[in-house]
């Protein structure tokens, strides 16, 4: 694990400024810390020699105020860096995924955890670990450099002992690596147990097994404590060893300075500066180690996110960019699939094999058995999936999926998510699909809150809202997956007419297992399971 990954700055330009400001603040803090040592020793000298205190005190107070301002700035900039780096990473990640097809994205579980807790874990990494890292890179160097000028023998002691810290850390790490690894995995299992049992509570309660787990919870928590303490003991011991090493080094500086002072070969002021500066060379290095542990999650998440951002672009860009809606496709555009084969990522069995299809303006109805790849066909046309073989040429499409997305928010927001529309247009579309009455009866009408996932609307009403949105969409190609699924026969017949009207103006491809739509079809396509005998596709032209 690298202390700092420069890929961060390349991948997330928004991170450059806060990280830069952090570095600058770190340098200034280092300078102020060194200067404070001088001012303090001047004050002490003035006190013991009963000299004039005014000037050193003014310096000292000014430096404390400056350090206070810098501490406030570090806190402030750290928080700013944390939130902007993690937000920028999350936004880049989601934008990158948005440009990819379904198979080049990680599975939903991984995607959600990376975009939520993963990006959030980077926040402490940037807010706390990075400032410490800057501090550790700047202050020891400044301290040793100053010591070389003020009192070189002390500088020599520091230069000889300082490398022992990382060396000891590495030695301790290596000596305990094996047992630490073993303990960590045991620890992960033990600490996961409580979460596992608690998340399983509904199941355990259902089957009357919850209460007998109480003793297990107690016993495992106790084992968890003992295992944690074993691991912590090693960690604490090694950090105590490093601290001891550092204090002994500082004590050597103090004693040699003391001896030289008593010989009269050194001035008091220089001696004081030396003993005040020596600790500054050691502790930032130790603190990096401590902060690194708390930021380790962030470092791991950062690595995973940067790897996702480095992910090669999908082999073929989405149809929307390949084939922008233009005159080349004729008045209404045209959808053309040539010998398209598609298998889900990781699967060798294709869902769709050797499928060819041309859908011109008007209504194409696709039917076929469950699992025959009907929805996959629409996904391919919409560019959400990329064929394993063959080509798909289609203008940008508006696609009403089986469970269409309806955002939390007002009816108006749900309908205009992809395109602007005036209230008159909204009402017109609602009238067209026959939910104007329902929406008008809602409190607030178009402003009525749909709530989480469209609270209070039946599946059929949601379906109609999604069709109203499709009605408003500017795209020339309309893909509908089971548009009449949740409706009673009358409603389905009405919506079939709506779909037919829509097909007057556009290319409409509808997947259905019901008859109402077929009556309006200009072209009827039957897909079969690829394993079924015969041609994978029967196309049957029908005229209204």
């Amino acid at each position, binding site marked *: 694990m690298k202390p700092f990954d420069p890929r961060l700055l390349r991948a997330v330009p928004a991170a450059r400024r806060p990280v830069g400001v952090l570095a600058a603040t770190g340098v200034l803090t280092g300078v102020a810390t060194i200067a404070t040592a001088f001012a303090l020793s001047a004050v002490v000298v003035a006190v013991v020699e009963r000299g004039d205190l005014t000037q050193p005190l003014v310096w000292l107070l000014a430096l404390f105020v400056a350090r206070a301002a810098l501490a406030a700035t570090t806190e402030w900039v750290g928080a700013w860096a944390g939130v902007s780096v993690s937000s920028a990473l999350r936004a880049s990640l989601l934008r990158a995924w948005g440009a990819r097809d379904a198979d080049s994205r990680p599975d939903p579980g991984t995607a959600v955890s990376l975009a939520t807790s993963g990006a959030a874990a980077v926040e402490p990494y940037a807010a706390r670990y990075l400032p410490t890292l800057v501090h550790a890179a700047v202050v020891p160097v400044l301290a040793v450099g100053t010591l070389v000028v003020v009192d070189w023998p002390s500088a020599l002691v520091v230069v000889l002992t300082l490398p022992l810290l990382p060396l000891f850390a590495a030695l301790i790490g290596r000596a305990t690596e094996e047992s630490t690894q073993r303990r960590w995995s045991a620890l992960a299992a033990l600490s996961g147990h409580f979460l596992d049992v608690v998340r399983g509570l509904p199941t355990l309660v259902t089957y009357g097994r919850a209460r007998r787990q109480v003793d297990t919870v107690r016993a495992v928590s106790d084992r968890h404590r003992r295992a944690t303490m074993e691991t912590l003991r090693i960690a604490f011991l090694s950090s105590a060893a490093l601290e001891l090493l550092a204090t002994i080094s500082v004590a050597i500086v103090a004693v040699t300075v003391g001896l030289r002072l008593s010989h009269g070969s050194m001035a008091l002021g220089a001696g004081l500066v030396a003993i005040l500066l020596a600790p500054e060379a050691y502790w930032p290095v130790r603190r990096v180690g401590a902060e690194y542990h708390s930021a380790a999650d962030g470092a791991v998440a950062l690595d995973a996110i940067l790897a996702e951002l480095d992910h090669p672009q999908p082999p073929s860009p989405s149809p929307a960019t390949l084939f922008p809606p233009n005159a080349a496709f004729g008045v209404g555009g045209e959808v053309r699939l040539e010998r398209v084969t598609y298998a889900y990522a990781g699967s060798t069995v294709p869902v769709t094999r050797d499928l060819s299809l041309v859908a011109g303006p008007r209504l194409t109805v696709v039917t076929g058995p469950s699992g025959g790849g009907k929805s996959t066909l629409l996904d391919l046309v919409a560019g959400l999936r990329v064929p394993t073989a063959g080509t798909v040429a289609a203008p940008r499409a508006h696609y009403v999926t089986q469970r269409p997305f309806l955002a939390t928010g007002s009816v108006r927001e749900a309908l205009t998510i992809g395109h602007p529309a005036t209230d008159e247009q909204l009402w017109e579309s609602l009238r067209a699909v026959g939910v104007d009455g329902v929406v008008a009866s809602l409190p607030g009408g178009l402003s009525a809150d749909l709530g989480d996932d469209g609270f209070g609307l039946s599946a059929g009403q949601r379906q109609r809202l999604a069709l109203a949105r499709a009605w408003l*969409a500017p795209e020339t190609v309309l893909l509908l997956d089971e548009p009449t699924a949740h409706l009673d026969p009358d409603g389905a017949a009405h919506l079939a007419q709506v779909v037919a009207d829509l097909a007057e103006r556009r290319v409409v491809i509808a997947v259905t297992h019901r008859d109402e739509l077929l009556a309006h079809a200009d072209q009827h396509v039957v897909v079969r399971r690829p394993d079924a005998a015969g041609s994978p596709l029967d196309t049957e032209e029908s005229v209204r």
Partner: protein
Amino acid sequence: MSADTRPVWWPTAGTLRGGLLGGIATASGMALTATSGWLIVRAAERPVILTLLTAIVMVRAFGMARPVFRYWERLVSHDAALRLLADRRTRAYEGLIPLTPARLGRRRRADVLTGVVDDLTDAVDAQVRVTVPVLSTAVAGGIVIALAMALSMPVGLVMLALGCVVVLVSALAAALESRSLPELLAARAEVTRVSELVSSQSGELRAVGGWATAMTWLDRAHDTLARSTRRISAGRSLAASLYLVAVGAAVAVTAVIARDLDVATPVKALLVLTPVAVSDAVTPLVDAMRALARARGSERRVDALLGLSPAVVDRTTETAADTAADTDVTVAARPGATAYGRGGIELRDVTASWTGGRTDLAPTDLVVEPGTSVAVTGANGSGKSTLLAVLARHLDPTSGTYHLGGTDALDLPLAQARSQVAVVDDETHVLATSLRNNLVLARPDATDDAVDDALAAAGLTDLRNSLPDGLDTTLGAGGRGLSGGERARLGIARAHLSDRPLLLLDEPVAHLDPPTARAVVEDLTSLTGRTGADGGTRTVIMVTHRDDGADLFDRVVEVRRRPSATMTPTAVTQPGDRTHETGRPPRPGR
């Protein structure tokens, strides 16, 4: 003060010891700085070397005491905190049992439960991050003030004043932190919500051209988060800087006093350097106040949840669902199964409410013959899940009657009523244990053959055969992961193995793609009417939002939201030979 009303930072015996040890460590650190100063100034007076030896020994002693005591303190306080954590986890787990599942919210219960686990950890964290550092600073501060007073009363008073300022600044920091924290947490939650939505629904969003709009939601959530982070960091910045200004002022005043003090010059140096050393002890307080606000918030959330009263009362014992709800009655209650399995379900005018406020289930009648399968549909919020919770005895009805096999279900011992029902929801939990253990928790005496039967019935034979160690393969966290479809099927296999006469399913296939969903429902409905070990026949009731194979059920009923409308079994909308009218006797076991 009783254990439940204590503030979250209240020390345990262990962290009290940790605080004292930490105080010695901190004081040693201060003494190291001060005695080093004394040593240097004394050396500059060029005394006989031997007289310096005492000081050299002291410098070394303090230098070694600090890491040693710090190590000791960390061991003691972490052990104490982990003991407290073990205790609180056990108590919280016990407290959650009677609240499960009805009081855990109606959606995403696993997230609520994960929240409890995290909150407990944060609350106990206060011991190590707040109690011990504050005690350490207080102990060290007390020692320093006392010693300073012994050397010079005016300097001692300066140190006392510094101590008071530190207390005030800490109080201010804690107050500012507490004030801004809820806003920050809300902003974080919104970012999580939007990014979860965008990352899990990116296909649906792109399908309707809503991608760009969703990204503006994300940007807005990020802006709000940035604003509230700035606000909370303003408070932290203020505290961090005030500590340093106070220390600077204390050094200056001490220097002025010490200059003309009638003590040995090395002691003057010692006095001037003491407040400087204090700043090292005070800096950790910024973090401590931050952890305090966080722990208080977590504690409040845990208390609020655990303080709820259970949603069901056991009339036979006149107690809220607690111990009785969960003792292992699976075997003891078997006789009741006959009545249940043969008698069917009869709900009359049942209403129910999750919170006691608004009515979530309007007056509802429902009659289900044993051995039939029923799909319950209805708009979001119409009360489908509420109905299921009443049937499962997870929630007491507000009014109306609920009869099981002619007996008032509310008069049955809770544990007995519940032992008749297997519930499968849309978030089947796979425990981190073997496949066998994951199943037999539903019936501890099940043989491997019975387990294999259940797997076959739920369509999991292929999975079982593909596992390296068969039934002994570890699943769940740290083991083999299962797909959403496999998880749903595992829940169904569990329910089947339990051999309970009533199978209740709450949108078990909500998160599956349509072909998988339909396949799962097909396997599921084939379990209907099976004859159990006790001779009863199994009834299956499934709540579904979309028409995931609703046509495969014997009956489809719709729940309506309007308080005036009672639920009536609607005409079956899907044609098909498997549908038949309400009240038809159950077909023979399939």
